[in-house]
């Protein structure tokens, strides 16, 4: 069984993994053109070498989404069809578009509206996210308590890899403490939004009002939630998943383990990142986790 996993927003498109995938560029250029005509004219200026463009958080999110949709489209054209799919963090929009639940353009509208809702409800406070690799959960919890009360572990990627969200200053303190405690790697992520934390609850309900206006069809692919590892497919379930995805904690480690348990043997990272492929080396099991470039014969 094959799983398409749609990655979160990224800011790096150099050496992108879809470059050699048959049909990728046709799909990407076609979707980019459609997005520029029907939604946001500025996206047509994107090119893979231009990093300046990627300094704009929202435009960059559009490109990740377009890229992910194009990846899935190119794979389907070569008869690589998923049995199940998951949207990792903000990859949920591409997962829904690929499953036929939302139109391609409505996916862009949802990304824009989520961004605007979050910006309105979190203005005035400097938030951040960070990653810590090399400590276990017990050690990290002690650090979080010492660093400040805004911090939450908002995702676990493997036994020793975690994502934190909270107020920027406290994230910085936590990362410094984690390094002192022996973390092999810490990094402040290039985002100003504390995704998947309680700080986005208000924004999520503002976003919900918009989500309810979007036409949503039942998903044609089985979709799994990273929040509680439950399947969702009906329009009502999708509306709720889109809403809570902004402020509920995720657990990718648990999700991948669950998928392995039900017999998924082949995972494909459908997007510009290879982060989940790298992470998979730390999750044991008899399976393959492929990036787009590794699928090229």
């Amino acid at each position, binding site marked *: 069984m094959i799983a398409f996993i749609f990655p979160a927003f990224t800011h790096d498109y150099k050496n992108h993994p879809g470059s050699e995938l048959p049909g990728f560029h046709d799909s990407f250029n076609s979707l980019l053109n459609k997005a520029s005509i029907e939604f946001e004219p500025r996206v047509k200026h994107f090119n893979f070498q231009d990093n300046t463009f990627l300094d704009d958080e929202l435009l960059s999110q559009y490109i990740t989404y377009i890229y992910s949709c194009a990846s899935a489209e190119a794979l389907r054209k070569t008869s690589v069809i998923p049995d199940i799919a998951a949207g990792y963090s903000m990859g949920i929009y591409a997962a829904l578009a690929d499953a036929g639940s939302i139109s391609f353009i409505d996916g862009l509208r949802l990304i824009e509206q989520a961004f605007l809702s979050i910006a309105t409800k979190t203005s005035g406070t400097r938030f951040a996210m960070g990653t810590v690799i090399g400590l276990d959960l017990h050690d990290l919890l002690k650090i979080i308590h010492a660093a400040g009360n805004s911090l939450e572990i908002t995702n676990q990627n493997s036994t020793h890899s975690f994502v934190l969200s909270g107020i920027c200053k406290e994230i910085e303190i936590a990362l410094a403490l984690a390094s002192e405690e*022996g973390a*092999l790697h810490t990094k402040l992520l290039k985002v100003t939004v504390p995704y998947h934390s309680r700080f986005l609850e208000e924004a999520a309900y503002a976003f919900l009002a918009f989500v309810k206006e979007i036409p949503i069809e039942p998903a044609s692919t089985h979709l799994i939630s990273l929040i509680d590892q439950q399947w969702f497919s009906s329009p009502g379930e999708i509306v709720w998943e889109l809403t809570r995805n902004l402020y509920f904690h995720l657990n990718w480690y648990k999700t991948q383990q669950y998928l392995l348990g039900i017999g998924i043997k082949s995972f494909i990272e459908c997007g510009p990142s290879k982060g989940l492929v790298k992470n998979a080396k730390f999750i044991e099991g008899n399976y393959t986790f492929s990036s787009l470039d590794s699928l090229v014969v």
Partner: protein
Amino acid sequence: MARITENTRKEVKEIIYVFFADECEVDKSQINDNTNIIKDLDGDSLMFLELIEVFKKKYNLDIELKTIGKYAVKHPVQTIGQLVDMQMLIIEHENRLLELDK
């Protein structure tokens, strides 16, 4: 504690060279002890973590990741040669690695 033999260093070096050649998609002949892991090979911390797991399994090591992390803060590794040296210390001293600084 793993038993260090004459061949251990050779073995460790070979594993590290093959690992980075494979992970970074470069020919093994292009790697030497002075090769900078980040600048020359575009390596990252996940590779370092993966390599630690390889050695933990191979030599049945009793060492916590955070012990290695604390040691690495004081003794940063930049080149392949430095990584071989550190790995030898890890194999030899395991969880007593930090006692080397006392």
